[in-house]
Structures are given as C-alpha cells and as structure tokens.
C-alpha cells in the first residue's frame, strides 16, 4: 500500500518535505521507519534508533505500533518546540 510521508524542521531540511512510500499491507509505523532507515545515507542518520524522532499518523500524534492504511499520512519530526 502507498502512504504519504512528510518531514518537518531539521528532518525536512535533510530529507525533503515529503515523499510517497510503498509498504506491505499491515505495516506499522515502526516498520515504515525501519524501511526508511534501511535506505542508508541521510535517512539512516536522521531516523536512527536512539535519535529523538516523533511521529504522527493522519495528523494525530502516534507511536510506532500504529497500523498504517492505504493513503495514510505519516509525519516524522524532531521533538516539538512551540509555545
């Protein structure tokens, strides 16, 4: 299935604003991150395990156990700093 991945802040500067990604049906958000990590390069650096990366699914904060669906909007971003 195809999902839309969006990046913000320092992740956006390194990886671009967004990209369409194909994942196996039934994938979790964590599996998507693993898949992106496996590309190596900047994706591996920015999304490495141990780095503080937060995620949202369909514009709601989510954790990596969240199940993706066809057309899902996933976002990866650094810890937020508003207010």
């Amino acid at each position: 299935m195809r999902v839309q991945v969006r990046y913000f802040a320092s992740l956006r500067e390194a990886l671009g604003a967004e990209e369409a990604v194909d994942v196996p049906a039934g994938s979790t958000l964590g599996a998507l991150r693993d898949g992106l990590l496996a590309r190596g390069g900047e994706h591996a650096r920015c999304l490495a395990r141990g780095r503080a990366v937060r995620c949202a699914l369909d514009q709601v904060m989510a954790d990596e156990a969240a199940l993706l669906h066809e057309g899902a909007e996933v976002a990866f971003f650094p810890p937020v700093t508003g207010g």
Partner: protein
Amino acid sequence: MQRIVVTVQRADFDLAAEVAALREGDAQVGAVAAFVGTVRDRSDGAQVSAMELEHYPGMTERAIEAMASEARRRFDIHGARIIHRIGPLLPKDQIVLVVVTSSHRHEAFQACEFLMDYLKTQAPFWKKETTPDGARWVDARQADDAALARWGLQMDNAG
C-alpha cells in the same frame, strides 16, 4: 456560553481585544487568566536576532483544539482563546496567547497553565533561531515534559 477558539496565524494579536471578545455577553465570567509568550533576544547562552516558527498545517489547529477540550473536561471553564503565531519573528514579538475564562480564579489559572504545559510538548511547532554563529533549531526541554507530567500526562517529547 462555552466557547473555544484556536487560531494559528502569521499576524500579531491584541491581548485586550481578544479578552474582550472572549468575555463578550457572558456575565457569568468572574475570572480571566491570560498568558502571552514572547521572543527573547538570548537563548542557551547565545544572542538571538531572529526566529522562524515552522508548523504542521492542519495538525497544529486540531492538536490545540483537542488540548482545549481536555482543559474544559478537567476544569470548570467558560471559554478559551488560543493564538499561536508562525513564520518569521523578532525579539520582543508575541508568539502565543492563551486566555481562559471561568466563574472563579482557580480554574482559570489552572487551565491556562495546563494549556501552556500541554502546548509546549505536544503542539507541532518548531523554532529556528538566528544567532551570531548562524541559524540553529531549538532543542526541546525535558523540563517541559516534567511540567506536563505534573498534570498526570506522560507524553514523551524531549526524549
């Protein structure tokens, strides 16, 4: 009448005008508590000459509205007005406004502080500061996670 209005905008805001609008027509309001966050010219030991506020369009408004609904669930408040600015800002500029109305002061103070603690750790905004050494992204603070935890909400942000 209970009302919650949340706006994410580039334009500046006027505290007095927003308070007046929130209070209008509600003679049951006995307390108004407000917070304004502003841009400082120093941060983490460096001089800051400018700041850029990035956000997640769509998610920011929804996230803050959900926080306001949670505040209304926890505290007996009449209404809330929240404004968060985005885009380029300068030292002394206003960044964020939280105004809460209630019958009595305790709920207004509590809800105002709760909303700021929640917004600081869960609203999708990111600040980039311009310093003499160049532009840098602001780091999230564990102290803000601790502030939110005091309300019974364990939501990892800073990590």
